């Protein structure tokens, strides 16, 4: 389903394949100006689990920018802008671990550099 600005709305998408990939990302919650860094633990086209810098309240709107690998395409890295909602967050098991954030993706679009 095409959304505004050529993006894709994922309403009704079921049975998405899940991939254990470590893709670097930036994210921000509630449209704040500050972007935080993270990396995915696993991801599908309808949601992702990532390690981030902070805990976030479930239900909070979240915007995530995935940085796609450029070495595969010999071109500057493209980004996927994802919008969705925080579903849950987990405190780190130890001080050295980053918090885990689970999100649902409801919309995405690709951005070329």
């Amino acid at each position, binding site marked *: 389903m095409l959304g505004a600005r050529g993006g894709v709305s994922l309403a009704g998408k079921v049975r998405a394949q899940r*991939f254990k990939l470590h893709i670097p990302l930036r994210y921000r919650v509630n449209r704040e100006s500050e972007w935080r860094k993270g990396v995915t633990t696993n991801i599908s*086209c309808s949601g992702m689990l990532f390690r981030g810098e902070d805990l976030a309240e479930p239900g909070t709107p979240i915007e995530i920018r995935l940085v796609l690998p450029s070495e595969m395409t010999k071109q500057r890295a493209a980004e996927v802008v994802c919008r969705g909602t925080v579903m849950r967050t987990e405190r780190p098991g130890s001080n050295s671990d980053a918090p885990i954030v689970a999100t649902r993706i409801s919309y995405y679009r690709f951005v070329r550099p």
Partner: protein
Amino acid sequence: MDESAAAIDIVISDDHPIFREGLRKLLEAEPGMRVVGEAADGEETVKLVSELKPKILLLDISMPRVTGLEALRELSKLGTKTHIIVLTAAIEKEQVVEVLQLGVHGIVLKHSTLQLLLKSIRCVSGGQYWVGQESVSDLIQALRRMTPQSRTSEASRDFGLTAREVQVIALIVAGYTNKDLAQQLGISEHTAKHHLTNIFDKLGVSNRLELVLFAIDHHLISQD
């Protein structure tokens, strides 16, 4: 023996009228060859070949509007019995493999001699294959890239992806829209969508993001 019955019927498909006319005259001067039609683009080519069912189609793959490659794909789908010789100024290495996969019997570059072209027509009309010297080199290089040493090609082969489909996936990972990738590959947007649909079917993915994740996870595109 009826001479016309033994003649090799030929259709010339090229967007340059002067080239077509010149080639027609050269071929018709040759005993046993008869030019039965001329087409200026891919669409016209498919129509003419379907109607006239010539023994040989001399096809330029880089024509405007509906390209020769698109015509080739269409003719391949239709299961044409016409033997096709790609007669082109240049052909990419990957395209050599692709056109052969689509059922082409011959590849001749336009800078070849007339004698070579005539020889290729006779050879191909007899059911054999003809690949020019430069194309053989390209073919070998393209086949080498598909050897099992490459995890990428292994993975793409496991899913039955063509070289062109792998190119399309690489451009999707690079963030290209259908319009941009069509422009990049010199194909129509319709063909780009067609490639994507085939890729989605082969990989069992349902959208671009899922395709990109799948491609990264399965190493479907190469770094070289």
